[in-house]
């Protein structure tokens, strides 16, 4: 598989297939980050498109020496999410998070028992409701660490805050989310 940096160079030379490959490779990651942060699939879809538009326009500013392409992509996504959060703060309705729920990925679910799949779907919805009740700072930290699987230094690069702050936010976010889910009646597995 061709490296992201190589694909970026090809994109800058105006090769359309390289850009298509980059989009196909990273759409799910961007969409998931947007969906987990906003809790709305339609909004996440619009934001994902906006992220790639921004990436496409500013691709020349990406320098591999400053970090991996996914980290840069996540950073752009996060900045756009924060902008969107501030812009829509007034008319946001956090209780409409489960409209147009996307399906869980079917890669592994086809071999699963239906009850397990239903359980996973229910947990996904409840987690989304719990995340919506966290502050944006704690929410983004938990999403990046536990749902996107980023390391602490990558999160630090994305959020542009000291490592201590990253650790503190992740820790507080996890504890608060666990308490919220317990209040919601989610039982430990």
């Amino acid at each position, binding site marked *: 598989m061709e490296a992201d940096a190589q694909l970026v160079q090809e994109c800058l030379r105006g090769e*359309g297939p390289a*850009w*298509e490959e980059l*989009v*196909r490779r990273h*759409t*799910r*990651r961007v*969409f*998931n980050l947007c*969906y987990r942060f906003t809790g709305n*699939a339609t909004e996440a*879809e619009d934001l*994902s*498109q906006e992220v*790639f*538009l921004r990436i*496409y326009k500013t691709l020349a500013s990406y320098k591999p020496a400053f970090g991996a392409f996914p980290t840069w992509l996540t950073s752009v996504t996060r900045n756009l999410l924060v902008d969107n959060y501030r812009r829509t703060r007034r008319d946001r309705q956090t209780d409409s998070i489960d409209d147009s729920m*996307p*399906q*869980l*990925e*079917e*890669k*592994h*679910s*086809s071999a699963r028992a239906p009850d397990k799949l239903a359980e*996973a779907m229910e*947990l*996904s919805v409840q*987690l989304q409701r719990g995340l919506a009740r966290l502050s944006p700072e704690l929410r983004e930290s*938990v999403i990046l660490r*536990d*749902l996107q*699987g980023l390391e602490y230094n990558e999160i630090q690069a994305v959020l542009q805050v000291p490592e201590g702050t990253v*650790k*503190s936010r*992740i*820790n507080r976010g*996890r*504890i608060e*989310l*666990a*308490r919220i*889910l*317990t209040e919601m009646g989610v039982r*430990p*597995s």
Partner: protein
Amino acid sequence: MDWNCAFAEERLSDYLDGKLSPAEAAAFSAHSAGCANCAQTVALVSDLVNRMHKMEMVEEPPHLVARILDATLGPRAQKAGWKGWFDWVPMLWQPRFAMGLATVAALLVVVSYTVGLTPAKLRKADLSPTNVFRSANRQVHLTYARGAKFVNDLRVVYEIQSKLQPEPEPLPVSNPAPAPNQEHNSQPPNTTPQQKSQTTPPPSRTQVRSGTMFAFLLTESLADSLAENSINGSTRSTR
């Protein structure tokens, strides 16, 4: 260092992510073992983190990639000419379509075998609608006839079995008093072992049943042949 609840909570993620030194981890475990509140918090957060790590990504809408490409590269030109006709072919490689196709193929094979169309014996003429209908019609009638024969055979078997049922054994009488007229036939109590060996053992139950069945079949066949002979004889005499 003295670990209190606030400090343990502050280091909880470091503990779960394995970022504490062995001494710190031991101190953390010791504190949470002695504190019910901290133990509960550790259990809840640990469970949540594990579940989130196992959670699968949500699937993006299928049209999202095309939408992004259209927004960035502009609407892409459709393939012109005959190349455009085969745009749907790559979709067949997706698991859901492949599974559907396999199911339909299996169904067709089952149906073709049911109507008597085996691939080895298949000829071009078998594919004409008239022949397909005739074949299916014949297969349906054959299946019906086989079913009817099976039911009739089953009825005969049950009839024979019901006639061969052994008679219920008499209930044992408590303290049987020897009847005066049976004393003569009964075995004397002081028979010698040689005399005992000469007497034949009573037949077993299965032997009795098979013997009864044989006798019944013999009687039936004899009765049939006698009836046939009598009919033949009467016809001869009338002639």
